[in-house]
């Protein structure tokens, strides 16, 4: 199997003979390409001695035909197997050319401007999504929202008892760690009993809510984005829209309500588990009497701290649900995009939770809580 050709008088005569199965000879192919770049007026291809062939031969002939087509060189085929000639004709059938705009490198300033416009439109989209969600809540209160109770109950189940095991474990561990790290320092002053106060204040004021926020963002926020994103990929979201059902009513509302309702309770539970974790360390390792630990915990427990913590939980619930649903609804159309949406949902939820914590802390400072 070889490509033999010669050029006489602007005519390239190519003979293909023998078997062409898995033909992949780079050197011969580039030599042929070189020959094709000469000034030619006619190409003849003879396949009289051709035996077996597969696509690797078709590719070579196809390339020759394309070059000839471009340079308006006449091609004559002789003794071609019927199938091969037919195949070449099929491949050479001209189609509608797709018009995909090529990627153009833009100047820095233009890209900066486009980034700015992007941020501006994204902000607008985000705010309008929040607006729509709250309008849906309004419609729900008026009894006009189209929300299936089952969806809500499913979401509720998912963020309530199904979340309890992981929430318990993590909060317990956090309490444990807080107590442990605190004890090392407090021991220096012989004040290890204040571990109880440390754990209680830290958990109730902020740590409980933050830990729950991170767990629920990874667990529930991600699942919201993935579920709604998959519906977007399957055109289910389009179906809803064309039925005139607001996506926020049908998809966002049940999930949003479920998370916002359960987050405060999960936060309380996390506070409690954290204190138990702290107590475990204190009693087992610091030799603090259980009654003492409880007494100091109760003394340190402030209703204002506790309520601020719960408020954090509530706000985080809103943030996680909104981020999860927003990226789900705005998911792209291919399998990749669900992954992208999920990642964005979790990352943005965590970022916004930190931002909200900052704002709440500032507000508390101002009103002196």
């Amino acid at each position, binding site marked *: 199997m070889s490509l033999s050709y010669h050029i006489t008088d602007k005519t390239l005569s190519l003979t293909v003979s023998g078997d062409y199965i898995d033909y*992949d000879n780079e050197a011969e192919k580039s030599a042929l390409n070189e020959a094709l770049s000469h000034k030619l007026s006619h190409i003849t291809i003879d396949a009289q001695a051709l035996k077996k062939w597969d696509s690797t031969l078709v590719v070579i002939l196809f390339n020759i035909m394309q070059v000839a087509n471009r340079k308006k060189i006449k091609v004559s085929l002789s003794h071609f197997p019927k199938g091969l000639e037919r195949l070449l004709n099929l491949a050479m059938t001209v189609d509608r050319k797709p018009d995909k705009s090529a990627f153009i490198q833009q100047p820095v300033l233009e890209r900066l401007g486009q980034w700015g416009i992007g941020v501006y439109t994204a902000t607008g989209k985000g705010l309008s999504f929040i607006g729509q969600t709250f309008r849906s809540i309004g419609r729900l209160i008026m009894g006009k929202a189209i929300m299936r109770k089952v969806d809500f109950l499913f979401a509720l189940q998912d963020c309530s008892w199904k979340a309890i095991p992981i929430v318990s474990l993590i909060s317990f561990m956090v309490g444990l760690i807080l107590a442990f790290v605190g004890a090392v320092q407090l021991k220096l002053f012989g004040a290890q009993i204040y571990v109880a106060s440390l754990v209680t204040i830290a958990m109730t004021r902020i740590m409980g809510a933050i830990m729950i926020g991170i767990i629920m963002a990874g667990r529930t926020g991600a699942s919201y984005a993935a579920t709604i994103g998959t519906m977007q990929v399957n055109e289910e979201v389009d179906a809803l829209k064309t039925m005139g059902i607001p996506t926020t009513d049908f998809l966002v509302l049940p999930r949003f309500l479920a998370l916002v309702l359960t987050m405060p309770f999960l936060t309380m539970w996390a506070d409690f588990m954290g204190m138990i974790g702290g107590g475990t360390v204190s009693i087992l390792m610091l030799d603090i009497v259980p009654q003492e630990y409880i007494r100091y915990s109760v003394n340190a427990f402030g209703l204002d701290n506790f309520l601020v913590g719960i408020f954090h939980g509530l706000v985080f619930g809103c943030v996680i649900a909104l981020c999860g649903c927003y990226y789900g609804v705005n998911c792209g159309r291919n399998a990749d995009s669900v992954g992208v949406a999920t990642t964005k949902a979790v990352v943005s939820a965590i970022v916004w939770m930190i931002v909200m914590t900052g704002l709440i802390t500032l507000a508390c400072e101002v009103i002196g809580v």
Partner: protein
Amino acid sequence: MTKTPIITAKNLSVGYDDFLLMKNISFEINKGDIFIIMGGSGCGKSSLLKVMTGLVPAKGGHVYIEGKNFTNATVSEQNEIMKKCGILYQSGALFSSMTLAENIALPLQQYTHYSAQTIRELVSLKLALVGLKGFEDFYPAEISGGMKKRAGLARALALDPEIVYFDEPSAGLDPVSSKLLDDLILDINQSLGTTIVIVTHELSSIFAIGNNSIFLDGATKSIGARGNPKDLLKNPPSEVVKQFLTRGESK
């Protein structure tokens, strides 16, 4: 021209856990044929195709491909046999995170040792064959349903298969695209000599391109008729087949 069977099914039973869809059916598919598997919805056409391609185990009996026992083969032997087979799934089944070129290059990269340049050229050729020249860098989401099917066909043809299976190629296509796909199937069959197995209940395709067929009868779980569809239309062996081939209009 003498016909040699490339696929043989012997006493094949098809079904799932607790129910049978087809019982002890036998048929032969000849090399170079366009073979139609027809029958009403839900009678088990797709399931039969899945058994023939190894996606679902047979409930009994055997499928032989080029004389080799396919149903009894180990997974690696099945893969070896399936290399000679291309499959076009109902929706094209293109990987949505890859461009058309990457989709078609995948089996080539997996099973051949061609240079990157050759693979690139082969991909362009296959796309040109299905009328998608220049669509290399498009993602499946950016092309229409008919184009997805054709791109799926290009991928199925990547390794120069000897057999190409189609599950409902015309489902979801407009009559013109469906006709184009039929023509393409015919072109591929005639130029490459590829054996084509098509599951369909689209009458126009059945008569336009099929030269052999079996009719699956869901009620009796057996083959209700076999032969060239045009002959079956002329002399229907039973009322069910007649109803099917005439869309129930010949009362």
